[in-house]
């Protein structure tokens, strides 16, 4: 290979006048020992024979020498640079400030992206055993049960947004995880209020009062007054229109089923620290204790788990609920921090 690469070939190669095969042989020739130095020697000769600029080496040499001397003396170096070096430094400095500006902007964008939730949304959370009432900018009031969170737009809540299909979506929208009771104000322009839940159930409201239970084990909506429209993830499922006294439950297949409940308000009795049970098995009460107070409940006896409670009771904290249950069922319980076990 090497013998077909000579100075003439390399000169043609530098001028871009070689065949791809010749270029390939130049590449393998470059691998040879010492050929890199030869390559640069010939590149230098090639360059010397077709210089493109005139430049004063004495000037450049003097400049570099004074730069050397000044850098030894310290920071005054910049001052004594000839004019052109100064423009070079100014240019570098401008580039640098652009760089800083750009990186700041990038940092902001990244932070904005990372904290976009905090930036664009306001999230209200309740801890275990805590309920909280809040009023939205549109005048609607919402009461959050324990261990729940509600998220809505910090800016632009109650406005409209244009969707890609040219329709408008109401930004009077909240996202709920947990349990909440809603009293939605009806607006003069009939703008709908929308509640989104993690399991894909969306509640469209004009102005009404209803309660949403949207936790891991179930999604339920109970309507007290007015009317609301429910949609689920299922695309081909028709929206469900609810009337007062209706209870909608999302079943395991992800479909919404409608039943009647004589007392829809009992689903929100937690607002007044009340617990309304209607033939509610202890198993389900254990779920409620876990959801509302973060308790891990163990029921030793399966028969015990099936015993039911009916009635409405007031309890301000977890211990009061536990005592109440123990009294009603005539059973014992032991509590160790967040661990509770019921025994006969």
């Amino acid at each position, binding site marked *: 290979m090497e013998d077909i690469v000579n100075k003439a070939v390399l000169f043609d190669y530098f001028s871009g006048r070689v065949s791809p095969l010749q270029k390939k042989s130049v590449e393998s020739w470059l691998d040879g020992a010492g050929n890199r130095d030869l390559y640069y020697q010939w590149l230098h000769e090639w360059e010397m024979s077709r210089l493109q*600029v005139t430049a004063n080496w004495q000037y450049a040499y003097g400049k570099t020498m004074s730069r050397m001397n000044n850098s030894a003396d310290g920071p005054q170096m910049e001052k004594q640079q000839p004019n052109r070096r100064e423009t070079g430094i100014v240019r570098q400095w401008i580039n640098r400030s652009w760089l800083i500006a750009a990186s700041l902007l990038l940092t902001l964008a990244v932070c904005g992206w990372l904290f976009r939730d905090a930036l664009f949304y306001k999230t209200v959370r309740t801890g275990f055993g805590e309920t909280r009432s809040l009023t939205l900018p549109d005048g609607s009031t919402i009461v959050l049960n324990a261990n729940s969170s509600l998220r809505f737009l910090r800016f632009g809540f109650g406005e409209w947004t244009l969707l890609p299909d040219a329709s408008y979506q109401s930004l009077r929208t909240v996202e709920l995880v947990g349990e909440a009771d809603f009293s939605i104000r009806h607006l003069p322009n009939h703008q709908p209020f929308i509640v989104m839940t993690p399991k894909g159930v969306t509640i469209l409201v004009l102005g009404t009062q209803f309660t949403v239970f949207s936790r891991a084990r179930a999604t339920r909506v109970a309507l007290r007054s007015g009317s609301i429209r429910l949609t689920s993830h299922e695309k081909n499922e028709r929206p469900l229109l609810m009337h007062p006294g209706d209870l909608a439950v999302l079943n395991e297949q992800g479909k919404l089923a409608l039943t009647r409940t004589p007392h829809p308000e009992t689903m929100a009795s937690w607002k007044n620290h009340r617990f309304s049970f209607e033939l509610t098995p202890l198993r389900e009460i254990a779920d409620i204790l876990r959801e509302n107070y973060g308790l891990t409940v163990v029921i030793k006896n399966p028969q015990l788990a099936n015993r039911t409670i009916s009635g409405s009771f007031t309890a301000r904290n977890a211990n009061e609920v536990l005592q109440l249950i123990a009294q009603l069922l005539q059973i014992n319980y032991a509590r160790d921090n967040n661990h509770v076990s019921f025994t006969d």
Partner: protein
Amino acid sequence: MIPGPQDQPLFDQGDLIRPLNEHDRTTLVVDNEHLIRSAFANSPEKGFESLFRLYYLPLCSHAVRFVYTQEVAEDIVGEVFYQLWKTGAYTAIQHTYRTYLYAAVRHRAHNYLRDELTGTRTVSSLDQVDDGRLDETPQTLIEYDELFQRVEKVIHELPPQCQRIFLMSRFENRKNQEIANELGLALKTVEAHMARALLQLRRVFLATVSILFVVFPGLYPLPG
């Protein structure tokens, strides 16, 4: 065999055994490095003086093939010399000064061009390059050669007026307004020609252009 015309087909095998052309005969430097070495033995000042005398001009000429601005080319070459001097690397040159200088200048010129055309100028582009530790493979050497050839080709293929304006701006360091006055053109026309030239040049590095998308979040359901 008689040398063929310059525009003969690339695959003409006659190329390989063609006698040396006129450029080869005007060989100016073969190996003067032993003179440089003895100058360095005398003093660094003397050594650098001979380095500048021998290599400053051809290095600038070579750097210009990449960056197409004489001022930038001279800055790059000057910086390489300055770093060689300041870091004391001239005492530990592995091969020849020539190899060191050309490799360093080409590397910096390549980086400068890449950063200018892809808009990713970083502080490291000009300052924090370790000229002595360049990992040059035959592929990088050829890549650099192809790069300056592509730049040359792009500028060669610019429309005459566009090319003229570009060269006036880059080599004579003229402001757009001055060029407009001299050529009797509107400032906007000159700016358009410059933009066109730069757009063409960008194609040299098109493959590496990256775009930063900043996407703003829409309202979406909470994750289940």
